């Protein structure tokens, strides 16, 4: 069973800009799926079409087998969306925004009130329920939009850059929250600029660039495509010359820091063994860049 099926989706805007070209991908029920791509790649257009906020030029979209053209109401009932930009009435009270949203989905007031309390408490906004939305901080506004998207308990939650402009602590707590929702059975589609976020949360990934899907696979399969990895090693004692270790490409960044390029077929233990032979002791190490980020840049630059 698929939560989302997109077939031959095309979008050309009135000004002639071709935003999407023959997009095809599907998202399995229960999946945590990342749709990645650089700015202007077509991510938000795709999400806009799925959520009926953008007219498509051609193609077919089904949400839990409901065609968005022939069965829009059923399809819309299944979807909850957290858009990139704040799009609530800033003069409305937090609680009222959620109750109204529930109303648009035909949820009776009594149930809407209960769910509003549940989600506002869960997202730490209960104390702000009587505040105007404009008085919330950026992070609170993000959480409000997540609560609003969940009020009708959708089977498919679409998060378009949900943690943009959010501090690290809040970002982590939002990750935990969406993980929990996903574990309870909600399918999640995430677009993000934080590739660490996608690597940490998602099981399947599609990469879109210039309106085309250039990669659509499992995260692990995708990461295996990475031929080389860079590690930064922090040394205990300073070095004055770049050590020469056969098979490894090493750069001395400063007296205490080495940048080592390792082929995925190589063993990292061999590196440490050779470093020990040269009496070079490593204090700590880290990936130079996020692995997915490295791959993402390679794919989007080459397409």
């Amino acid at each position, binding site marked *: 069973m698929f939560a989302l099926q997109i077939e031959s989706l095309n979008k050309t805007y009135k000004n002639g800009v071709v935003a999407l070209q023959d997009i095809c991908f599907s998202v399995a029920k229960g999946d945590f799926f990342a749709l990645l791509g650089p700015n202007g790649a077509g991510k938000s257009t795709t999400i806009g079409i799925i959520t009926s906020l953008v007219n498509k030029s051609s193609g077919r979209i089904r949400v839990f087998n409901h065609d968005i053209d022939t069965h829009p*109401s059923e399809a819309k009932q299944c979807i909850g969306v957290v858009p990139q930009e704040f799009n609530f009435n800033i003069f409305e009270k937090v609680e009222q925004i959620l109750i*109204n949203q529930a*109303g648009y989905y035909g949820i009776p007031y009594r149930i809407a009130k209960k769910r509003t309390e549940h989600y506002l408490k869960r997202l730490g906004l209960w104390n702000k329920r009587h505040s105007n939305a404009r008085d919330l901080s950026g992070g609170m506004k993000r959480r409000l939009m997540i609560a609003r998207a969940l009020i009708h308990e959708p089977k498919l939650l679409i998060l378009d850059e949900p943690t943009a402009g959010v501090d690290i602590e809040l970002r982590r707590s939002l990750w935990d929250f969406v993980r929990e929702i996903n574990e309870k059975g909600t399918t999640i589609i995430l677009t993000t600029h934080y590739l660490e976020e996608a690597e940490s949360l998602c099981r399947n990934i599609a990469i879109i660039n210039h309106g085309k899907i250039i990669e659509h696979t499992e995260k692990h399969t995708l990461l295996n495509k990475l031929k080389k990895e860079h590690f930064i090693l922090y040394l205990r004692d300073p070095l004055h010359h770049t050590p020469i270790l056969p098979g490894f490409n090493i750069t001395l960044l400063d007296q205490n820091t080495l940048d080592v390029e390792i082929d995925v077929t190589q063993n990292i233990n061999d590196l440490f063994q050779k470093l020990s032979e040269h009496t070079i002791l490593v204090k700590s190490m880290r990936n130079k860049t996020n692995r997915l980020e490295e791959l993402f840049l390679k794919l989007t630059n080459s397409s």
Partner: protein
Amino acid sequence: MKPSSNITFISFSTIVSKEITRFIRIWSQTLLPPAIIMALYFIIFGNFVGSQLPLTQGYTYMQFIAPGLIMMAVITNAYNNVVSSFFTQRFQKSVDEILVSPTPNWVILLGFSTGGILRGVLVGIIVGLIALCFTHLHFQHLFVTFIAALLTSIFFSFAGFTNALFARKFDDVAIIPTFILTPLTYLGGVFYSLNQLPPHWQTFAKLNPIIYMVDTFRYGLLGITDINVYFSLGLLFLLTCLLFFVNLYLLNKGVGLKP
């Protein structure tokens, strides 16, 4: 499959209650100004100027202009409520909240329009009560009075909705009321009888739909008319239906809402 009638009713009542809350919350911008402006019209035109004028079709000038002033308030308030509310939601993108939901387009149209109708009728009642402070009015034909006010407010709510769909900036929201609606209302027989115009101007004036609304409403209140009431009501009904389907078509196409 269409959404069930219960879901449709809940989404409709949500939009309507949100609209009512909005115009009640900002009553000093929505309900108070028309009351003050119309009171000034009654004092200046009805009292100071009107007292110098002869009876018009058996009524004092104050009585003659009262129905027109009430309709003027109904027209501008029904129109302004929908155009400002819907355009603001478009501008803030908060209308997306409704567009992503299963609420059908006809419910969106009727929901916002009902807000305009209720404000138009409420302001009409307020202005009617102010008129009673200056003169006495009796319903000659209660049903005609009611139906004329209702159809007029529906028509102008729909017209406000069309304006809100096409507007790109706040200036576009003000242009139609300022340059089209207000002149048409002033030329719509509020302050004079159609029969007082020269024959060729009478023909020209009949191209203005507001003249039929004011005339029918005046017939309901005073029992005097320049145009056949049934013809006016029929025309108003047809124009209202036409505007409903035009708006529905625009919504279905996503004009002004979906790139």
